[in-house]
C-alpha cells in the first residue's frame, strides 16, 4: 500500500477495472507521475479485448495489439496490479480517499507461479471455459489465456475438489491452499472507474433458439470460433458437428434497441461494425465460398473509416445486408436454421442458414451496478454512469471519474480516448502530489567492456516442462558450452524466476561475463526483464541476446523431441554468434521544454489547453481567427439539452484569464523543427506575415477543427427556404418564433456524406436533425416534420431521442443513394419528392422549410500539415498513430490530435478527446528528461549518395539532407524500424544492435550444422 506523502493530497490513483480503458488510464497516469493501483476482479488484466479475434476497421489481430499494453502495464514500476479483488466501499474525498478492498484468494502465488501450466495439465476436474464463452472446458487450475498478465494460474475454488495434485506437481511451490479472503485498504487521491460492460445474454429470447441450438451463437462466441486461440484454432466450424458452414446469418440489435424483450432501449453502438467484420473475417477463414447475410434495422457505421469498411464488405466481399425485422429462428434438419423475417416492404420471407450469430448488445453487469451504488455514483436510467456532455468523464461524486463502456456503449478507440481523458481529469486535482509516490530504480554504474574479449554466459530455460518436456535441455546446455566465446552455461527450471535473476546477476560478476544469452521464451514478454537484470549487474542492457526455444521451437515441435532439441541448439548457436558482436549502446538522455503548443481555438483546443494549464504546464494556444469557440459558437444545445452557449462563454473566459495560457489569435503555424521535448515552432500573424514569433515547446496538440460543407444540391443557395443544419440552428438561436408559422418542415440526411466522393458518415447529423426536428415540434406542435434518411444513426443513448421523435409524430422516410429525393419549387412552394419503400410509391411533400444535414469537413490545415509533417487520410482528416490504441497520438512522438480535425464527433466526444490529448501530452511534459532507446539508424556520411531513398522510405519523416550534404537521421525522432536501412542502396545506413555484421553472423551460425564449423568461426 502506498503511504500518504507529506502533501495534503495523495499522489496515487486507483483504477477499477483492467480492460483496455483501465490499462490506458493507468499507463497515462503512471507515465505522468502518479502511482497507480489497478484493481480487477479477474485473475488477470485485459478485459474483453483478448477474447476478440480481429478489430474493425483495420482487421488488426486484437491480441497482437493489446498484448504490448498488457506487458507495459504488468512491468510498470508505478502500476500495482491488484487482481482477484473488488472494491467494497470508499471513504473520504478528492485528494484523500480510503478505498476498502476485498482480495479474493487465488490459491496460487502470482509471484512464485511461472505460468508453466503443469497444474492445468494434470488437474482432474473441469469447468466451463468462460474465456471461450462456454465452447469448451478448462481445468479448475487455470489461466484465462496464454498471454495473460500476470502470467500466473489461479484455482477456481467453485470447481476445485481440493485433491492436492497441483501442489504436488508445482515445482515452483506456488500453490497456497491456505490463502483466505483478505480485506485491505488503499490511500488514493482519485479514482477512475473502468469496469466495462457485459455482453447481453440472449438465453431468454426463445424466438432465436439460442438456448437450445448449438449453431445459434452470440457474437462473442463467434469471435472465439474465429480466433486462432479459440476452441477450433481459428477454423470456421459449426459447434454442432464442426462442419464448415455454407451460410451464416447475423441478427442485429439483440438486447439493444429493444424494449419488448428486455429493457435496453439504447443502441449498443458497436454491433453493426463487429457483425460486418465477423462476416468479412468468416469469409477469409472459410475454405469454400461462404454466404453471409446481416439482418438489420439501420446500419450504424458512423465511425472513422467504418462506412468504407461497410461498402467494401458489400461490394468486394459480397456480404448481404437485409433490412428487416426477424420474427423467429427455427431449427430444421442437419443442424440448419430457418430465419423467418419481414422485409422493408412488409413481406414475410424465410431463408435457411447453417449458423446464426446473435449480435448481442452490452449492458453494465450487476456487479458494476452494485459497485456504483456502494460508491455513491449516480447512474442513468440504463444503469450506466451519469455524466454531463461538458464533463464527460466526471461522475456525480467529486474525485471519482469514469471511462469506457460504463459511461455508454462504445468501441475500443473511444474507450481508449476516454481513458486518457479520465487520467487527465484525475491528475488535475492531484498536481501538487505528482511524483510524490512514484518509484525509481537506482542502478549501478555501467561496466566498461570495450576492448574486452567476448565472454558469453548462456542460460537455457526448461520453462517447467514447456521446453524441458519436449527438448533435451541438458543436451542443449552442454552443446552451448563448446560454442565460441562461451564461458558459462547452465540450465534453469525457470530462468525468469526471481531466484534465477539473482543467480544471473551473481554469475555475471563472478565470471566477468560481458555478454548474456538466454534461451527461453519470447523476447516480446521477457527481453526487457532480462535486460533489466543484466543492467542491475552493471552490464549495458544491449549486451543481451535471446533465443526463443519455446514459442518457436518446443511449442510447435511437441511431437518431434529430437528435432526440437536440434532446433534449440541451432537457435542458441545463432544467438551466441550475434551476442559476441554486440556493442554497448548509449541511450540518449535529453532535457525537455515543459511547454505545450495547442493549434486551434475551438472547444477541443481550449479544453486541451485548459487541461494542461490546470496541471501547471504553460500553453501557447494558437487560433487562426480572431475569435475563440469555433463551431460551438453556432450551436445551441447538446442532444441532452445542455446549453452550449454558456459553456463556451465560460470556456473562453477561463482560457483568456488563465495564468498559464498564452493566447495567439489571428495567428497560424508556419514552420516547426525539433523533436519530442524540444520543438521550435514559428507562428505568423494571419494579417501580417512579417510578424513572427518563435515558440519553444515540448509537445503539440493539433485541434484545427472542421466545418459544415456547402451543399450543391436540393436547391441550396437558390431558395431561401433551404437551409443547412447549422443555419437552422442560427435562426432558432436568433428568433425561434419565426418557425411557429411553418406547417411542414423536411430534413434530408446524408447531404454530401456517404457519397462516392465523400465516403464517410458525418456521424453527428442524425442526432442533430432529430434534435432540431423536436425543437420545431416544440415551437409548433401541429407542424408536420419529416426526416428523409438512409439509416438513422442515433448510436448509444441518442436512440432515446429517436424514440421520442417518433412518439412526437415526426415521420421518418428512408431513401436510398440510388433514389435520392428530388426538390423543386416550380409552383412557388417547395416540393420534396421521395420514394417510400414501405408504401412502395413516390410521395410528394410540400415544405415550408427544407433542412439539409450537410457533411462535416475538416478545416484546411495545409500549414500545419507541412510544418508538423503529419499525415491526413484521403478525406483530409488527420491520421492517428493507430486507429484503435493510439487514437490521439500522431505517428511522430510528441504530437497529438483531437476534435473535428480527427473526425466528425459530438461535443462530449470532442471534449473527451481533447482531455485525452492533454493526458498523453502530460506523459511527456511531466518528466524532467527524455530517455531515448538506442536502437537507431545511423548514417555513414562517406557512403551516402544523397539519393533521398531514406527520406522517402521513413514512415515517420525523420531523415533529411543536412547542411553538409548527406542524410541525417535525428536519433530523437528515429523509431528504429530499419526501413531506411533495408532500402539504402549505398548501404550507408546501419541500425544499431541489428548491424549487418551482427545479423550475418547470426544467420550464418544458424545455417551451420556442425559444431566444429561453429567453433572454427566459419
Amino acid at each position: 500500500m502506498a503511504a500518504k506523502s507529506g502533501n495534503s493530497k495523495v499522489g496515487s490513483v486507483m483504477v477499477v477495472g483492467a480492460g483496455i480503458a483501465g490499462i490506458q488510464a493507468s499507463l497515462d497516469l503512471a507515465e505522468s507521475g502518479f502511482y497507480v493501483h489497478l484493481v480487477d476482479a479477474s485473475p488477470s488484466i485485459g478485459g474483453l479485448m483478448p477474447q476478440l479475434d480481429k478489430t474493425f476497421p483495420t482487421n488488426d489481430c486484437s491480441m497482437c495489439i493489446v498484448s504490448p499494453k498488457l506487458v507495459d502495464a504488468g512491468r510498470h514500476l508505478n502500476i500495482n496490479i491488484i487482481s482477484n479483488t473488488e472494491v467494497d466501499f470508499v471513504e473520504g474525498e478528492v485528494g484523500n480517499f480510503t478505498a476498502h478492498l476485498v482480495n479474493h484468494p487465488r490459491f496460487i502465488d502470482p509471484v512464485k507461479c511461472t505460468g508453466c501450466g503443469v497444474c492445468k495439465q494434470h488437474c482432474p476436474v473441469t469447468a466451463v471455459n468462460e474465456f471461450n464463452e462456454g465452447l469448451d472446458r478448462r481445468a479448475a487450475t487455470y489461466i484465462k489465456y496464454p498471454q495473460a498478465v500476470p502470467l500466473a494460474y489461479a484455482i477456481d475454488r467453485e470447481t476445485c475438489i481440493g485433491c492436492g495434485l497441483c501442489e504436488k506437481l508445482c515445482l515452483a511451490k506456488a500453490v497456497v491452499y491456505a490463502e483466505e479472503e483478505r480485506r485491505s485498504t488503499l490511500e488514493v487521491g482519485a479514482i477512475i472507474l473502468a469496469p466495462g460492460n457485459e455482453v447481453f445474454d440472449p438465453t431468454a429470447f426463445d424466438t432465436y433458439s439460442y438456448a437450445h441450438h448449438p449453431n445459434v451463437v452470440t457474437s462473442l462466441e463467434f469471435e472465439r470460433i474465429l480466433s486462432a486461440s479459440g476452441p477450433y484454432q481459428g477454423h470456421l466450424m459449426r459447434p454442432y458437428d464442426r462442419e464448415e458452414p455454407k451460410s451464416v446469418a447475423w441478427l442485429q440489435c439483440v438486447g439493444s434497441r429493444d424494449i419488448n424483450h428486455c429493457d435496453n432501449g439504447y443502441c449498443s453502438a458497436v454491433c453493426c461494425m463487429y457483425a460486418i467484420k465477423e462476416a468479412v473475417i468468416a469469409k477469409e477463414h472459410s475454405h469454400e465460398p461462404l454466404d453471409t447475410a446481416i439482418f438489420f434495422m439501420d446500419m450504424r457505421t458512423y465511425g472513422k473509416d467504418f462506412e468504407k469498411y461497410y461498402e467494401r464488405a458489400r461490394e468486394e466481399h459480397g456480404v448481404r445486408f437485409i433490412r428487416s425485422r426477424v420474427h423467429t429462428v427455427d431449427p430444421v434438419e442437419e443442424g440448419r436454421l430457418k430465419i423467418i423475417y419481414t422485409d422493408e416492404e412488409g413481406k414475410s420471407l424465410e431463408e435457411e442458414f447453417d449458423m446464426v450469430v446473435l449480435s448481442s448488445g452490452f449492458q453494465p453487469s450487476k456487479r458494476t451496478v452494485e459497485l456504483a451504488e456502494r460508491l455513491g455514483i449516480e447512474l442513468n436510467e440504463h444503469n450506466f454512469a451519469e455524466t454531463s456532455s461538458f464533463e464527460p468523464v466526471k461522475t456525480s461524486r467529486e474525485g471519482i471519474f469514469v471511462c469506457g463502456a460504463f459511461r455508454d456503449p462504445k468501441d475500443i478507440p473511444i474507450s481508449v480516448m476516454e481513458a486518457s481523458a479520465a487520467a487527465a481529469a484525475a491528475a488535475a486535482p492531484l498536481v501538487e502530489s505528482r511524483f510524490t509516490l512514484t518509484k525509481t530504480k537506482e542502478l549501478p554504474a555501467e561496466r566498461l567492456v570495450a576492448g574486452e574479449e567476448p565472454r558469453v554466459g548462456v542460460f537455457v530455460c526448461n520453462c517447467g516442462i514447456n521446453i524441458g518436456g519436449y527438448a533435451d535441455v541438458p543436451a542443449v546446455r552442454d552443446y552451448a558450452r563448446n560454442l565460441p566465446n562461451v564461458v558459462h552455461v547452465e540450465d534453469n527450471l525457470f530462468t525468469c524466476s526471481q531466484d534465477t535473476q539473482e543467480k544471473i546477476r551473481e554469475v555475471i560478476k563472478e565470471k566477468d561475463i560481458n555478454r548474456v544469452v538466454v534461451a527461453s521464451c519470447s523476447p516480446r514478454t521477457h527481453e526487457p526483464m532480462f535486460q533489466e537484470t543484466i543492467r542491475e549487474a552493471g552490464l549495458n542492457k544491449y549486451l543481451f541476446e535471446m533465443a526463443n526455444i519455446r514459442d518457436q521451437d518446443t511449442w510447435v515441435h511437441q511431437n518431434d523431441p529430437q528435432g526440437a532439441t536440434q532446433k534449440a541448439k541451432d537457435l542458441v548457436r545463432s544467438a551466441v554468434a550475434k551476442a559476441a558482436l554486440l556493442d554497448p549502446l548509449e541511450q540518449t538522455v535529453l532535457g525537455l521544454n515543459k511547454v505545450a503548443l495547442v493549434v486551434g481555438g475551438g472547444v477541443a483546443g481550449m479544453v486541451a489547453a485548459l487541461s494542461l494549464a490546470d496541471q501547471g504546464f504553460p500553453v501557447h494556444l494558437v487560433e487562426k481567427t480572431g475569435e475563440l469557440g469555433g463551431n460551438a459558437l453556432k450551436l445551441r444545445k447538446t442532444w441532452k439539452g445542455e446549453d452550449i452557449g454558456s459553456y463556451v462563454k465560460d470556456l473562453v473566459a477561463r482560457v483568456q484569464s488563465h495564468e498559464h495560457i498564452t493566447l495567439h489569435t489571428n495567428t497560424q503555424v508556419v514552420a516547426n523543427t525539433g523533436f519530442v521535448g524540444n520543438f521550435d515552432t514559428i507562428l505568423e500573424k494571419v494579417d501580417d506575415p512579417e510578424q513572427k514569433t518563435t515558440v519553444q515547446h515540448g509537445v503539440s496538440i493539433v485541434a484545427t477543427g472542421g466545418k459544415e460543407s456547402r451543399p450543391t444540391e436540393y436547391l441550396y443557395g437558390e431558395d431561401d427556404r433551404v437551409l443547412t443544419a447549422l443555419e437552422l440552428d442560427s435562426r432558432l438561436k436568433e428568433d425561434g418564433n419565426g418557425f411557429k408559422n411553418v406547417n411542414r418542415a423536411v430534413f434530408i440526411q446524408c447531404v454530401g456524406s456517404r457519397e462516392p466522393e465523400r465516403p464517410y458518415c458525418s456521424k453527428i447529423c442524425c442526432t442533430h436533425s432529430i434534435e432540431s426536428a423536436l425543437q420545431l415540434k416544440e415551437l409548433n406542435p401541429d407542424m408536420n416534420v419529416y426526416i428523409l434518411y438512409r439509416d438513422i444513426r442515433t448510436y448509444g443513448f441518442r436512440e432515446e431521442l429517436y424514440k421520442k421523435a417518433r412518439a412526437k409524430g415526426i415521420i421518418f422516410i428512408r431513401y436510398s443513394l440510388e433514389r435520392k429525393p428530388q426538390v423543386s419549387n416550380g409552383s412557388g412552394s417547395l416540393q420534396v419528392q421521395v420514394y417510400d419503400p414501405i408504401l412502395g410509391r413516390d410521395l410528394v411533400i410540400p415544405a415550408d422549410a427544407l433542412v439539409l444535414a450537410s457533411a462535416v469537413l475538416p478545416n484546411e490545415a495545409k500549414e500545419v500539415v507541412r510544418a508538423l509533417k503529419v499525415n491526413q487520410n484521403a478525406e483530409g482528416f488527420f491520421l492517428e498513430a493507430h486507429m484503435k490504441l493510439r487514437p490521439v497520438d500522431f505517428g511522430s512522438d510528441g504530437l497529438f490530435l483531437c476534435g473535428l480535425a480527427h473526425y466528425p464527433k459530438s461535443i462530449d466526444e470532442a471534449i473527451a478527446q481533447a482531455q485525452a490529448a492533454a493526458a498523453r501530452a502530460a506523459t511527456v511534459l511531466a518528466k524532467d528528461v527524455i530517455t531515448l532507446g538506442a536502437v537507431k539508424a545511423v548514417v555513414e556520411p562517406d557512403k551516402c549518395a544523397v539519393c533521398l531513398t531514406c527520406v522517402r522510405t521513413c514512415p515517420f519523416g525523420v531523415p533529411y539532407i543536412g547542411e553538409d550534404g548527406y542524410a541525417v537521421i535525428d536519433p530523437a525522432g528515429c523509431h528504429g524500424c530499419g526501413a531506411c536501412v533495408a532500402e539504402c542502396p549505398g548501404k550507408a545506413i546501419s541500425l544499431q544492435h541489428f548491424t549487418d555484421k551482427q545479423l550475418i553472423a547470426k544467420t550464418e551460425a544458424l545455417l551451420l550444422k556442425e559444431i566444429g564449423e561453429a567453433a572454427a568461426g566459419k
Partner: protein
Amino acid sequence: MVTELTELVQTMGPFDAEANKMALAAVLRTLETETVRWLMGMQRELTEKGNVYGEKVKADAYMKLLDETIRSEYQKSLIYLSLQDGPLSVREIDSRTNIGIQTVSNLLSDLEGRGQVELHGYEGRTPKFAGIFL
C-alpha cells in the same frame, strides 16, 4: 444382488468380444487415464478425511463427478480409438461410437487441447480429425 446380476448376464447371452473390441479397449484406456485413476484413488481421502481446504467432499457429489468423468473419459477414448484407422469427420466418428454428434464435437476440443487429436484436413466443407499416436 448377485442373483440379479446373474440373471441379467443370462438375458444378455454370450459376450461378443470381437463386436465390442473398441468398447473394451476404450474401457481399458479409460481406466488407465491419470484423471480416472487419481479420482478413484482419492475418493475415500476426500470424502472421509477431507480435502486440502479441510472440507469433506459430499459422497454423492463425488460419485456424480466420478460418473461424469468416467463417462467423458470413456467417450474420449472411444473417439480416440475410432481414429486409429485414419482421419474421420465428426459424423463418421459418431457413426462408429454412437455417442452423439454434439458430444463428439464437444469432446474433440478437449482431445485437441491435450494433443491427442488434430485437424487433419478437409473434404469439401467437412473437417477430418486424426488421432495422434506416438
